[in-house]
């Protein structure tokens, strides 16, 4: 079997149609993960009883196990729970009406939440305590101080790590094929097996992912420049 260079382009064009699915999974999991992570981080920093222990256990468990096991656990476990709850409450909801991509959304959000919680937490810890004290001294409430003073600085610090999390989730979204969601990876498998040209199809898929990753990096670099404007040194 020879390497068919023109087929790489054909596969590439085919794969373009799957990019929205991949990006959607990434976007949903990153957004939901960010919210989960933010709550987890704040709860842990303020050492809220019970909740902070739960958050710690959650982060430890998720970070200590592969993303694939989360997806499989959710895929097999969630329907059982949903059906049991719905039967107990007499709701007419059936787990079979959850779309496949829903499992990917839920599971990847849980994964992203744990990783982002660590990123945000380290960002929050990097903000000087004096900032918070200054906010209090001019009469801000804790939520105000967090929202207006601490979080913007914390997010600026953790931006590079957040971008890595986004890239991690982009790469992780390839696992969605195990729950039969057709993302770039699954599409590559389909294109490859119908034409029996695996190498070419995966080369095209790799090229797309590489491009997307570089794009995310560039965007982050721009954003970082913008967001750190307040923090530059010098006199100009």
């Amino acid at each position, binding site marked *: 079997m020879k390497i068919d260079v023109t087929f790489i382009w054909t596969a590439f064009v085919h794969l373009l149609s799957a990019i929205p699915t991949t990006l959607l999974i990434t976007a949903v999991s990153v957004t939901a993960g960010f919210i989960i992570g933010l709550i987890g981080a704040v709860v842990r920093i303020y050492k809220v009883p019970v909740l902070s222990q739960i958050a710690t256990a959650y982060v430890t468990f998720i970070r200590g196990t592969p993303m694939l096991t989360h997806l499989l656990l959710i895929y097999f476990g969630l329907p059982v729970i949903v059906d049991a709850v719905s039967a107990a409450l007499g709701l007419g909801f059936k787990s079979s009406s959850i779309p496949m991509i829903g499992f990917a959304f839920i599971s990847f959000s849980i994964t992203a939440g744990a990783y982002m919680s660590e990123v945000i937490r380290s960002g929050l810890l990097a903000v000087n305590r004096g900032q918070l004290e200054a906010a209090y001294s001019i009469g801000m409430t804790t939520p105000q101080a967090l929202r207006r003073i601490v979080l913007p600085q914390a997010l600026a610090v953790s931006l*590079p790590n957040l971008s890595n999390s986004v890239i991690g989730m982009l790469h992780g979204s390839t696992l969605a094929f195990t729950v039969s969601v057709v993302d770039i990876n699954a599409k590559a498998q389909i294109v490859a097996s119908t034409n029996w040209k695996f190498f070419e199809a995966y080369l095209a898929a790799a090229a797309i992912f590489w491009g997307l990753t570089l794009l995310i990096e560039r965007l982050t670099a721009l954003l970082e420049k913008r967001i750190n404007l307040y923090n530059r040194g010098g006199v100009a």
Partner: protein
Amino acid sequence: MGAPFDFSFVFSFFPKLASTLGITLLIVAGSLVVGMIVGFLIALPRLYRIPALRTFSQVYVSFFRGTPILIQLFLFYYGLPEILKLIGIDMSKAPVLVFVILTYGLHTGAFMSEMIRASVMAVDRGQLEAAYAVGMTGRQAFTRIVLPQALAIAVPVFSNLVIALLKDTSLAFTLGVMEMTGKAQTLGSVTQHFIESYIALALIYLVVSFTLEKVLKAAEVRLLRHELPDTPARTGFRIQKKGSYRRVVAGIGTEKGGAEL
């Protein structure tokens, strides 16, 4: 879907899954060895600024950090035999495990090279100069002064890499390797107790990564005993332009992703 939940299955699955832990750890160890060698080879041109090779290193690292490991697995599994066939090497008989270890090795190598590069560069140049000043040879200065310090900086990153690698090996089942995840899927479909088998799987991964982390943490403490403990001064919110060891460590992308060219 499947049989009703029965927690006792989780326990009965433990020994069965643990029997394949060896394969998982073999993949991890094998790829660490390959990754270490590759990482060194890739890091050197960038450390010594060798013109053409340096660009190659950059592209290599960017590619392996910029594409998902799953895609890389398939790419090498299907692509490597065809490329090697062109130069007359027949790999069609090679076991799948070889491809898996090779791919994970090359993947980890990219991250390792970044780790090696960053930790060597993090050692203060004055240390080397001081070593020369007391009359050490270049080799002595490297093995006695630079290497121990670089190692200490690298350990936390290395620890993250090993754990990430362990978790990534769960994807080897896609090529049909019977490691822990593959075994868990088989157990699940044989007994129809999927949830129990995946819970057992997750717990084993958790224990293994926890142990790895603790062991490497101990190594870090041992290697860093010459450093002063972190002072409260590091609570500044400004991004440090020039910082201590820990800053540098934090600056190295320890998570997956990041493909800067």
